[in-house]
């Protein structure tokens, strides 16, 4: 029972509890808060693995910008608690077993493959920011420019959608 294994179990349990809470909560703001907990737990897992830059970016961008957008929209639209209709109960009956079956299938396929039984989480595998940035700006510079163009398109789309139409 190394400290890393204990930390992994704690963070993994936290993320699973957060995901379950996302499903079981009735009010969307509580679901949003549970999703934030999942993201922070995942950032902790990235730190445990040694991917420190990705952990920081996850918290800054996902937890600090995207989820803030979700929380803003929930507040502005005054979303109330959910109502469960007949169709959602049917979806629950059919969907939950299928979802569990899908998860079980994927997990069993992974656990059976002995090829990827390498260890992760040692401090020697620390991912330096310098190497990641060299890769982004040298090998992957074309996708990087494309994502900046994608963000520009998204900004224009959001502005067009939010513009008030003059009747």
């Amino acid at each position, binding site marked *: 029972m*190394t400290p890393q*294994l204990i930390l*992994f179990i704690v963070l*993994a349990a936290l*993320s*699973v509890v957060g*995901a379950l809470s*996302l*499903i079981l909560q009735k009010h*969307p703001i509580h*679901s949003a808060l549970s*999703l934030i907990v999942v*993201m922070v737990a*995942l950032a902790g*897992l*990235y730190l445990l*693995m040694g*991917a420190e*830059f*990705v952990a920081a*970016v*996850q918290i800054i*961008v*996902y937890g600090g910008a*995207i989820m803030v*957008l*979700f929380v803003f929209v929930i507040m502005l*639209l005054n*979303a109330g608690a*959910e109502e469960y*209709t007949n169709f*959602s109960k049917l*979806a*629950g009956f059919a*969907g*939950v077993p299928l*979802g*569990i079956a899908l*998860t079980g299938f*994927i*997990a069993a396929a992974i656990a059976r493959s002995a090829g*990827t*039984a*390498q*260890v*992760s*989480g*040692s401090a020697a*595998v620390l*991912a330096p920011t310098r190497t*990641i940035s060299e*890769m*982004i700006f040298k090998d992957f510079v074309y996708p990087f420019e494309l*994502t900046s163009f*994608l*963000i520009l398109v*998204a900004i224009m*789309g*959001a502005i067009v*959608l939010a513009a008030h139409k003059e009747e």
Partner: protein
Amino acid sequence: MVPVNYYVILSAVLFGLGVIAFVVKRNIISIFMSIELMLNAVNLAFVAFSQGMGKLDGQVFVLFVIVVAAAEAAVGLGIIILIARNRQSLNVERVDLLKL
């Protein structure tokens, strides 16, 4: 030392929970959040494999996934605001006509 398999199984479990949330929830915003949960699960698998193999390509791809998720969230939430304004409800079962 935690084996890579543990992280990937956790990623599969989170993905399954995201699928279940997508199917069960009736609020549009909650369904959108379940999509973000699925994307996060996939990110975890990417980073786990990247650290397991010692190459950093997985982490660079995770950065791109995060950027695309941000763009998608911005536009998707804009559309959701318009739908809520037009239909006065956030229940996804009320958005069942092709013409609003």
